[in-house]
């Protein structure tokens, strides 16, 4: 029951990431999805190492979101070459 609720939330957030308009909106939905996946991993693996993997994944996802948000500020509207 708990895993099903979290699973539906994760899939909804992933779909909203795909169909969002603004880039910063995508970052917020991505972060909500990472919360969901970390919780799902802790509920599935019920031993202490499950908590360790959830914490490691969550902090790594926060570091990469930080890097992406910083780069969004530096590259405002990028130029792509049409091949």
């Amino acid at each position, binding site marked *: 029951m*708990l895993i099903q609720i979290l699973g539906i*939330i994760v899939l909804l957030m992933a779909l909203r990431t795909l169909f969002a308009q603004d880039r910063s909106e995508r970052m917020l939905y991505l972060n909500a999805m990472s919360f969901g996946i970390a*919780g799902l991993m*802790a*509920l599935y693996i*019920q031993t202490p190492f*499950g908590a360790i993997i959830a*914490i490691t994944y969550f*902090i790594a996802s926060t570091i990469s979101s930080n890097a992406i948000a910083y780069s969004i500020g530096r590259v405002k509207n990028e130029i792509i070459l049409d091949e």
Partner: protein
Amino acid sequence: MNEIIAIIIAAVLSWINFVLIDTWMGLPEQPGVRGADVIGRSVKRRGGDLAGGFFQGNIVCSPDASAGTLLASAACYTIGTPEGGLIAAVLVYFGNRLCADPGYAGTTGALSITCIIFAASYIGIGPADFIVGMVLAIVTIQGLHHPLASKLLGRIAEKMGRHTKLT
């Protein structure tokens, strides 16, 4: 206790926990890192409040009380109620320093939610309900409608005297 009622009570408790601790630690006042600045100004451009935008940006870019709450309840579920919260508080402290954030919001959130989980275990709400409740709370802040959520957070920040002075 009925499962749905337990999840809703846990969601309300974790929402109150992380919003109050983050606002008290000054998250809406200024962006901690540059990524939070970008996200905050984008939320303001779409019709929201700047302090609420900085709050949401700080949640994305560095581990704060929301991360502490989720990870402490995951650790309490797998390791056991007081020990798991303390282990999670130590690991969130390391994560804070890894993201170059000098604050203590994550550890404070983890320790306070450990006390709340310990108290709620006497009513029949287990730590697993707190994990799902925390994810539901984050979805109401960052997953539904960003301008409305930022206006609510801005009003809470004003009441506690932590609204931002930047424009």
